């Protein structure tokens, strides 16, 4: 059974925040890189982080997640607005479901 890693993303950098955008990119790079070694990687987009999920040039790297078989992308119902045109497929969960997911993880990181 593969080890499980959950990465929490709770910030969305503004377009002119160079370092913050680099940090965001490197967080996704880490998710992709670790997944390549057989770790089951999940991401939880929380709070302002949900804004990264909308299709945009700024967050284009997000599209690589589904492409490289990272499909466990979670958002809590209460963080979800009327977002359209998503960059990737996400799963909306409630607090209890997220709690179950969190308990299943070997490691939880918040790299941004």
């Amino acid at each position, binding site marked *: 059974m*593969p*080890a499980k*890693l959950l990465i929490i993303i709770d910030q969305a950098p503004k377009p002119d925040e160079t*370092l913050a955008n*680099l*940090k965001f990119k*490197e*967080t996704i*790079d*880490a998710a992709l*890189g*670790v997944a*390549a*070694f*057989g*770790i089951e990687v999940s991401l939880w987009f929380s709070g302002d982080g949900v804004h990264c999920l909308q299709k945009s040039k700024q967050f284009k790297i997000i599209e690589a997640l589904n492409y490289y078989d990272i499909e466990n992308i979670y958002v809590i119902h209460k963080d979800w607005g009327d977002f359209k045109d998503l960059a990737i497929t996400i799963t909306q969960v409630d607090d209890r479901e997220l709690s179950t997911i969190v308990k299943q993880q*070997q*490691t939880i*990181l*918040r*790299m941004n």
Partner: protein
Amino acid sequence: MNNPDTSPTPFAVLVHGDPRQSKSHLSAQKFIAAIYQSSKRVSQVFFYGEASSICGNYSSHADAQNQLQQKWLTLSKKHHFPLQACITTATNRGVVDKQESNETGKNVNLVEGFKLEGLGMLAEAVSSSCKLIEFGD
């Protein structure tokens, strides 16, 4: 008769905070010192993102950064755990190891005692029996 391994679970440490601005390196170093005082151990330290610049020798480093770097080297030598920086994020921040130097002609500035590694090291920390602790901004 087989004796079960009763040695305590080691810790792996991930640092991704900027050494110029965040307290993450100092906090990680204090954590590691406390780990060894309680007879546990650290299996590895992995620097990612902005933190990976800690392994380079720059003339522009402030004294505080140099002190952090030296403290890492002292801890690593004393307790025999490797200091590993992500090769991609370190290289993107101007760190040059011997291989990069051979390819580009740039001078080596990777400080001895640090090693550039791929994300496989982070994957190993996640999948092993270690407890992975992160220090960020």
